[in-house]
């Protein structure tokens, strides 16, 4: 949408809290409720906060999303607690399967499979369907798309719903990994996402994938090979890395067009 959303981290966080609230339900039902929560919150935020500033400049939209993030985060703090709450995870996910002598946690398979499905699905939706075409058109030029008969309000709502669903999936995965929820848990994933987009170049899905992979690989390598004394500074090093890339490629690795000045 040519828009950065700070509140995406809070969509993740709220979906994770749904898992915590509905912990009593059977696991699939709890996951479904998390998914619905993510979608509902994203749609609600779009309607109440983002639609009114849609025609404003990108900075206004960015600050608006910051406001939404702050509100959602603190609503959870007030309603639940600022401290972490633990969430039970299904035993099957915490077990490991051994492949060729290497033991791999089952959760990793789920994560990997889900990522592949999401990427393929998103690529298909954006580049192979009418709705996707309408979304890309609305992102490119909202008013023009509207004049051409694209039901832009609906298209944007749909893209928010999708981002809410994706956020929910991330939220569930994080809870499965860490077994707990906190009001600030969305901050790191959203920042990683932002930085991945900056590294990759705006407006290119493939760029974001490359950027994300680079960050992930770098983080793992640092975790494995960093001298003990420097391990706590892993995040600092990971987030300094994009700066090095930007020195040489100010518009990201793939150099997306959005953000470049047009004459």
């Amino acid at each position, binding site marked *: 949408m040519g828009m*950065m959303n700070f509140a995406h981290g809070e969509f993740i966080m709220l979906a994770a809290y749904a898992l915590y609230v509905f912990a009593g339900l059977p696991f699939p039902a709890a996951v479904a409720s998390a998914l619905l929560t993510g979608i509902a919150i994203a749609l609600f935020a779009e309607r109440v*906060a983002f639609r*009114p*500033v849609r025609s*404003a400049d*990108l*900075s*206004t939209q*960015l*600050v*608006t999303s*910051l*406001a*939404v*993030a*702050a*509100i959602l*985060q*603190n*609503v959870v*703090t*007030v309603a639940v607690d*600022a401290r972490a709450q633990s969430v039970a995870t299904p035993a099957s996910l915490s077990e490991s399967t051994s492949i060729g002598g290497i033991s791999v946690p089952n959760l990793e398979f789920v994560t990997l499979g889900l990522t592949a499905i999401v990427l393929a699905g998103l690529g298909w939706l954006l580049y192979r369907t009418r709705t996707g075409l309408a979304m890309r058109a609305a992102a490119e030029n909202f008013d023009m798309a509207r004049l051409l008969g694209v039901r832009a309000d609906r298209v944007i709502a749909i893209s928010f719903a999708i981002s809410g669903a994706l956020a929910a999936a991330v939220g569930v995965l994080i809870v499965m990994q860490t077994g707990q929820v906190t009001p*600030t848990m969305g*901050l790191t994933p959203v*920042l990683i996402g*932002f*930085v991945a*987009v*900056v590294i990759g170049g*705006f407006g290119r899905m493939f760029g974001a994938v490359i950027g994300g992979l680079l960050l992930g690989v770098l983080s793992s390598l640092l975790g494995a090979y960093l001298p003990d004394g420097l391990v*706590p*500074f892993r*995040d*600092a090093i990971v*987030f*300094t890395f*994009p*700066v*090095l890339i*930007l*020195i040489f490629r*100010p*518009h*990201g690795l793939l150099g997306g067009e*959005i*953000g*470049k*000045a*047009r*004459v």
Partner: protein
Amino acid sequence: MNGARFRPRSSVAISLLVPLVLIAIVTLVGASGTPSFQGTVTLILCNLIVVLGLQVFVGNSGVYSFGQLGFATAGAYIAALLTLPPAFALLQTPGLPHFIADAQLGPLPATLIAAAIAGLLAVVVGLPLMRTSTLAIPISTFAFLVVVYNVAANWDRVTGGSSGLVSIPTTTSVESAGLWAAAAAVLVIAFKWSASGYRLQATREDEVAARSIGIGVMRERLIAFGISGVLCGIGGALAVHQSGVLNPTTFYFGATVTTMTMLVVGGARSVLGAVVGAIAIATVNEMLRGLENGADLFGAISVGAAPGLAAIGLGLILLATMIAMPHGLSGGREAGELPWIRRLGLTATVPPPRTSGVATGRSTADPVGKGTLRAEGISLSFSGLRVLRGVDLELAPGEALGLIGPNGAGKTTLVNVLSGFQAPDSGVVALDGVDVTGRTPTRLARDGLGRTFQASLPFPHLTVLESVAVGAMGIGVGRRRAAAVAADVLSRLNLLEQAALPAGSLTPAGQRLLGVARALATHPRYLLLDEPAAGLNEVECGELVEILRDVIKDFGCGILLIEHEMSIVMELCPRIQVLDDGMTLCEGTPEEVQADSAVVEAYLGSAFLAAADA
């Protein structure tokens, strides 16, 4: 001194006075309260300094940074470590070098050193970050904030880790914080109205237009980023000497949201907005915190303790501001610019500046060169579409060359190549015999190449006078002389009456003329005009021809005129070059071009014949 001023003295005085009076009131109210109230007010004033630091960068550049609190963190830790009594320092930070641990500076030197290091850090961090785009800066600065937090929280032996530092001397009084805040406000206003401040504001208004008048976007952003770092460092250093404790979250995400809310609610573009926003939001915040701790509302309704409530309140205020009032309480205006202050008659109406015939931005001794602007064999394709195919062009100072051709012929693209906005695939652009292919628009503007845009690209929130003066500032002229240059240019273009109006309030025709004026203020030797007459009526077209004739005569510059209004081209240009499908179709006098059957066939047709007959 010349009579051209950007604003009347009374307006400047009020713009300075109002923030200072507000700061003085807060300081005095604070000083008269209990010690704990004094502490609260002192922290509010420290926050105000940080918000002023934010304003310098965000307000003038229009680019959001979420990393400025990282400089407050840096300033706070440095000031704390420099002032910790050696005994405490040894206990809390065993890894600190001895000369720092043993040092126990007074509050003033510690604050100054903290400010200097924070500013230096801002320049070092800003060097790579300011190269990136307007969209990437918010993210990369946010990443910087996380890096600072991560270091502060984990460098246990120096920063005390996540538990932080205690027993820091509490030396900041309400009065000293008030004085620092007042000094910061004056500095920030002075910067806003300095040549550098104006150049930065021009990049906020329109980055492309700013580059076309010689403004280095990255350089101007970096200067403000550095000043912002200094101010945030001061705010952090003073705050830590009030509270006496410091940990990595003191100036982290929460404080970033709070200070950003203060700036945006007040109105980021103005210093008044920063001051008003900081004071108003701090007041609301304190009230909400009262609620958080549980309080009896109006003696009747009892509210339980609920931490987080204040943050929700601030978030809602920020959201409501963005939706309903994106320019904030101040509307982005300084006190002297507020409409009701004007109506009260407190500021003089701005007199149209007098001119004294300071014709140029460059020194008048600078002779109008003998050289030429030459393009040879320029070719350019956009993803397979060949827009320019080996175009040659030559323009001499003092000459008017018409560039015509049907839509899509490549005229604007050629101007983009000449002015550096677009690199050609092949071919050479030479300025007075020097190969300048690949030079940036900023550099070319300083080399004497001015241009206008089809879309005008005005600086809507600057006044007409400022918009033109910033052109002279772009090539390095000081602000006073730039005002004189601008007044002179405006008088030649009959725009002087509108000098004090916001550029955004002019008619489309006026904005086109303003674009010409802005380019002229850079004293170009070659001026590339992209459809200056679009949207002008017949009378205005006639005036434009006269104006451009005078420009050629008085400034001695060569004009390349792209125009669809044939009467103007025929009247002004002794030589015309016709472009079609990326190639030069023919070149010659108006008569020759009119007689060329290929031209008539390819493009001019009946519309032109009618104009020629008239």
